[in-house]
């Protein structure tokens, strides 16, 4: 098994051939076309990701500078050390999880040492705080930089020694954790071999250790399920097959094995299996953020902030963003914050993607996921489950700043469900913007969809299913005047379109033998939400938004 191992000889050979090929390529650009030695490439996109998006989308603008980076740039401007330290400390307090915080903290430390070397308690307090704030991947570096600065200044050497010992202990612990994670798949392999070779005790020990080190290790869960089956313990087989299925990476046959084992323990019935998976998911993968409900302050305005999130169920770094927006949905009532999730086939096919979500991505110029726009101000990047809290803390100030920003329009929305159609009427007035390309958009979303995708997330909130208007393009709004619009979302027609999109995607990937494990085209009438918003299509800024949740009793009619 190779670990970060290349075959050096092959690499060298390849490098040589690259060099020679590179020479050919240079000659290709400098010689006449008739020269036979012209041997180089052209690189052209052959196909886009499957799924035709509706037309009529404006040219995307470059994404704006993220607010944390703006704040960091501002904080670096003062030349007076007092002002600089104060500005950087404010930046660190406002954006504690911004990638620039470690750098800012280091600048604060060196500024203090240079200008006020006698304020040793203050310097050490800052050093200690910097280390506490550093994210895991930067902690080792934070220890080193701080200790080096103290050694160079020849101050606080006793405390620097204390920090050096602490840094060493932290590194040992970190390395041990990483070693456990790296060992886990190998331990799972060994455990599965033990199962096959009739060594159940050894198998159980190895597999449980592997699963404890990495709860998303499908092979470890499968090994334990197989062991349980051999022991005729169907209850535990269900437990471990369920674990494997919830990772989102299990093959279709594993889902079948789960169903079979479940039936054996439930009188040949599958009733309750989804509920079991839901409960287990909530228990095994709790939201990694403690949510405190939002309390509006005196500056709260009538604005409903719109968060538009571009994500993918097969996108690992989307996890932090998805879970953070789950947390925002808990923190804020819908009159405060509306969330719309536009699923994309990035990087893997996502059965919640549709032409309307792809069109919206194109409108914003989204080139990767996760990407999110708060009232039209777009930025990108997420992370793993462990990074959820950092994401949550980082974006929350932006949302709350917008909650205190006056709305630039009034949007009234009414929606009813009858005869299989959601009939929407929206009225926009009180428009304070003079922008020339204002547009009212109306999105139909499902409040929660259940689907265990490859990134392990099972519950997907506010999944956009359709957008109103011709080519899903919304309705023009005249500056200063407003507009009224009516639209009917025909649920059967939308379901058909969603299925057609997924079928077409499979058809395009048929040579790869690709098939969705589950197609999420069915729409549940008791799960619907309508969101309306007014947007300046040039600046992308959202003037105002509003949300209506179609209540079950309305939906049931």
């Amino acid at each position: 098994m190779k670990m970060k191992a290349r075959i050096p000889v092959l690499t060298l050979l390849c490098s040589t051939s690259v060099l020679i090929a590179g020479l050919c390529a240079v000659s290709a650009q400098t010689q006449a076309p008739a020269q036979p030695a012209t041997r180089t490439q052209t690189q052209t996109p052959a196909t886009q990701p499957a799924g035709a998006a509706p037309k009529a989308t404006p040219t995307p603008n470059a994404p704006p500078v993220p607010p944390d980076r703006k704040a960091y740039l501002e904080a670096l401007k003062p030349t007076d050390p007092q002002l600089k330290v104060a500005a950087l400390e404010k930046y660190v307090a406002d954006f504690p999880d911004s990638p620039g915080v470690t750098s800012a903290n280091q600048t604060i430390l060196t500024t203090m040492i240079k200008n006020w070397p006698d304020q040793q308690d203050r310097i050490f307090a800052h050093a200690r705080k910097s280390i506490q704030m550093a994210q895991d991947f930067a902690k080792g570096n934070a220890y080193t930089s701080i200790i080096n600065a103290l050694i160079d200044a020849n101050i606080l050497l006793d405390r620097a020694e204390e920090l050096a010992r602490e840094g060493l202990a932290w590194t040992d612990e970190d390395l041990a954790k990483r070693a456990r994670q790296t060992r886990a798949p190998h331990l799972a392999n060994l455990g599965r071999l033990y199962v096959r070779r009739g060594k159940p005790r050894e198998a159980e020990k190895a597999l449980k250790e592997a699963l404890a080190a990495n709860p998303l290790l499908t092979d470890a869960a499968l090994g334990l399920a197989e062991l349980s089956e051999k022991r005729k313990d169907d209850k535990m087989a269900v437990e471990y097959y369920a674990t494997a299925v919830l990772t989102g990476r299990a093959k279709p046959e594993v889902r079948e094995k789960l169903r079979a084992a479940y039936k054996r323990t439930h009188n040949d019935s599958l009733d309750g299996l989804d509920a079991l998976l839901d409960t287990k998911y909530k228990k095994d993968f709790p939201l990694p953020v403690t949510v405190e409900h939002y309390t509006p302050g005196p500056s709260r305005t009538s604005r409903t902030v719109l968060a538009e999130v571009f994500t993918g169920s097969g996108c690992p770094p989307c996890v932090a963003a998805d879970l953070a927006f789950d947390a925002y949905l808990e923190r804020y009532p819908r009159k405060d914050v509306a969330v719309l999730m536009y699923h994309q086939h990035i990087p893997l096919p996502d059965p919640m993607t549709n032409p309307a979500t792809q069109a919206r991505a194109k409108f914003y110029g989204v080139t990767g996921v996760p990407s999110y726009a708060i009232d039209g101000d777009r930025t990108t990047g997420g992370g793993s489950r462990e990074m959820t809290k950092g994401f949550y803390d980082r974006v929350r100030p932006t949302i709350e700043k917008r909650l205190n920003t006056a709305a630039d329009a009034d949007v009234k929305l009414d929606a009813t469900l009858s005869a299989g159609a959601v009939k929407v009427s929206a009225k926009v007035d009180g428009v304070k913007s003079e922008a020339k390309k204002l547009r009212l958009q109306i999105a139909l979303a499902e409040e929660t969809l259940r689907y265990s995708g490859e990134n392990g997330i099972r519950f997907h909130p506010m999944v956009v299913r359709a957008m109103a208007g011709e080519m899903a393009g919304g309705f023009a709004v005249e500056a200063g005047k407003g507009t009224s619009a009516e639209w009917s979302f025909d649920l059967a027609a939308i379901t058909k379109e969603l299925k057609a999109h997924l079928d077409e995607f499979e058809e395009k990937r048929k040579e790869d033998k690709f098939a969705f494990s589950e197609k999420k085209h069915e729409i549940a009438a008791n799960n619907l939400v309508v969101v309306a918003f007014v947007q300046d299509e040039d600046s992308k800024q959202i003037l105002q938004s509003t949300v209506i949740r179609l209540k079950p009793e309305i939906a049931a009619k």
Partner: protein
Amino acid sequence: MSSQLMQRLVRGLCIFVFLSSVPALAQKENPITWTVASEQTAQPLKAGATFKAQLTARIEERWHLYAMEQPQEGGPRPTRILVPAGQPFTLDGKIDAPGPIRENDPNFGFETDYYESSVTFEVPLRIAATAEAGRQKAVVEVRFQTCNQEICLPPKTLKLELEVDIAK
């Protein structure tokens, strides 16, 4: 130095160049660029002859190009290299790929095989015996996807063309 230690050092350095690195990382649209070339096609080749094309991917820092085979299903989409039908060139054997890096990938929670920095694939091609003499374009298609720890980009399919002179 261990790979993980190196990774952490790189990440640490990236923090200190926050001013320039973050937006670049977040907005990167093409962190992997491809070229195709061949030493053997510098001279005309006969119909029915074989030659090798080198497909080189340049991979920007902190991005991964996933290998053509993966140790576990349910992970990233493997890179695929194809020679499309409808041209006087066919694939003539196994594509030679250097050994990838195998490492626990925090994105997926298990080991993946990937390349970083750059990689060259050797693609063996055969000219059809019935190929017409003159200059022809050999088309090689590459399908790949890439992620880093913060963002995933859409899967891409690129067609790379190499001019080949077929002797009379």
